[in-house]
């Protein structure tokens, strides 16, 4: 009897995470979906004008903004991150590798608001110095987000590289390849599924990041016309206006959250697909 009681308690705690997930989805959907219907799904997703005071709720510029900034972040983080992971796994000596590895972990622990602040006081003035726009731009946001997701890409890729059997590397050497070619032609391809996972995880983080973006992206709710124009992401849209929005405006912001959630769920599905493919191999 007592054992059953204990078991039930543990089961209940496990059920809490299910309940929380359902509750989050339910609250967002119940509040968001009817609003989408009220605005009109097409006017909402494809509308190009965001002017809540005139009841114009088109979030297409924000969707585009999120995509641009995320893609930019990946362009920054993926090359540097993968090369760094290869360095840590296959090139670095124990001592220097250990130091840099600890540094990457530290980078992962820095709060996003700190990245945003750094972007605001360093990156934005630099871009402004180039003489195009005020510095709050896609490119600033991409750079900052790129550095922010760098540790994710490095750590996950490195673990994948470390897990590649040494026999692959030795086999390549025995065929007369040098260290560099053996690493990039055999070890890296063998870790490809883990590397893909690291990129998608980074993508998810960049897509969902709020504070670092809102501080440097400029936040104009309009389509950007160059890398140097300001841009507003879905996350920024929520955080900027949630504080004072009421009525319909507030509900539309919740609907924006639903759109963001759908994007994130797609990323999660992609992750699972990669994982399954990796296991089949």
């Amino acid at each position, binding site marked *: 009897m007592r054992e059953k009681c204990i078991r039930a308690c543990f089961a209940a705690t496990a059920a809490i995470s299910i309940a929380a997930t359902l509750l989050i989805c339910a609250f967002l959907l119940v509040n968001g979906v009817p609003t989408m219907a009220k605005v009109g799904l097409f006017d909402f997703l494809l509308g190009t004008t965001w002017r809540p005071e005139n009841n114009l709720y088109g979030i297409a510029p924000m969707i585009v903004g999120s995509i641009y900034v995320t893609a930019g972040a990946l362009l920054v983080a993926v090359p540097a991150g993968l090369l760094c992971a290869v360095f840590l796994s296959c090139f670095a000596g124990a001592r220097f590798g250990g130091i840099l590895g600890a540094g990457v972990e530290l980078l992962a622990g*820095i709060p996003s608001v*700190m990245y945003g*602040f750094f972007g605001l006081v360093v990156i934005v003035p630099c871009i402004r110095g180039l003489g195009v726009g005020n510095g709050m731009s896609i490119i600033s946001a991409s750079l900052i987000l790129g550095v922010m997701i760098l540790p994710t890409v490095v750590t996950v890729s490195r673990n994948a590289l470390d897990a590649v059997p040494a026999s692959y590397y030795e086999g390549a050497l025995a065929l007369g390849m040098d260290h560099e070619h053996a690493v990039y032609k055999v070890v890296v391809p063998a870790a490809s599924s883990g590397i893909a996972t690291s990129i998608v995880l980074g993508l998810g983080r960049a897509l*969902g990041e709020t504070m670092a973006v809102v501080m440097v992206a400029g936040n104009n709710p309009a389509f950007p016309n160059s890398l140097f124009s300001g841009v507003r992401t879905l996350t920024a849209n929520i955080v900027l206006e949630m504080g004072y929005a009421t009525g319909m405006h507030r509900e539309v912001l919740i609907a924006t959250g639903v759109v963001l959630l759908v994007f994130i769920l797609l990323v999660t599905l992609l992750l699972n697909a990669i994982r399954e493919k990796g296991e089949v191999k």
Partner: protein
Amino acid sequence: MKVPKDAPERFSSKLIRGATYAGAGLTAAALMLIVGYILYKGIPFLTPELFSWNYTSENVSLTPALVNTVLMSLLSLLLAFPVGVGAAIYLVEYAKPGNRFVRAVRIATETLQGIPSIIFGMFGMLFFVTACGWGLSLMAGACTLTIMVLPVIIRTSEEALMGVPNAYRQGGFGLGAGHGLVVFRCVLPSALPGIIGGVVLALGRCVGEVAALLFTAGTVAQVPDFAGKGIGALFDSCRTLAVHMYALSCEGLHVGEAYATAAVLLAVVLSLNALLAFVVKKMEVTKP
């Protein structure tokens, strides 16, 4: 003794190696630039006024925010720890792997792990602040953070529990102990370092979070009045250090103080990192 001949290298090998070193160099440079710049700019502004007990718009003291960070983190971990570890114990020690309920828990934790913090903030606002009627408060913020860090704690605890050798369990059962006793006496103690590692990780997320707290805990720059209101102060609004820093840098009036606050926040994060490294090291030592 033979020294391998210095091989004339292929050009592509040099190129590849150069690129690899450059990638590592860039990462190292980014890290040093961020940490170095913030400390360099922030430390000169660390004045005694910045640490005075009460916040005013003149001294922009960070002490209340620092205290709030501690309160907020402790409260959310207090809630998340039993729930998260309990869930992990159920998954590892009790459930049959692969049954429906376990799969549902897995999917739920994976989904929670991917949800952006602004969504948690929005949910917290709709649920804890409005539906529960708690208002912008320490409690609403802590509950939101609890849900946010739950998957971190479940994951790490699960891994720690799975790392416990089966012999420990068999030893316990062999002495005629019940399942619950075996879990608490034989399994949990040796999984503890791993679980603590997860808790420190969760602590780091609580300390640095802003988006989930802006609309749940609010931005009042004072410590909740526990002396005056007792337990009712849990429902006072308060800002943590990270939120404080965001507010300062948005206002743009106290740039120096913002740098200093950033430096203090960074110091907190650095010490958490050191703590985590220590725990992980401890874990490796105690591993059988």
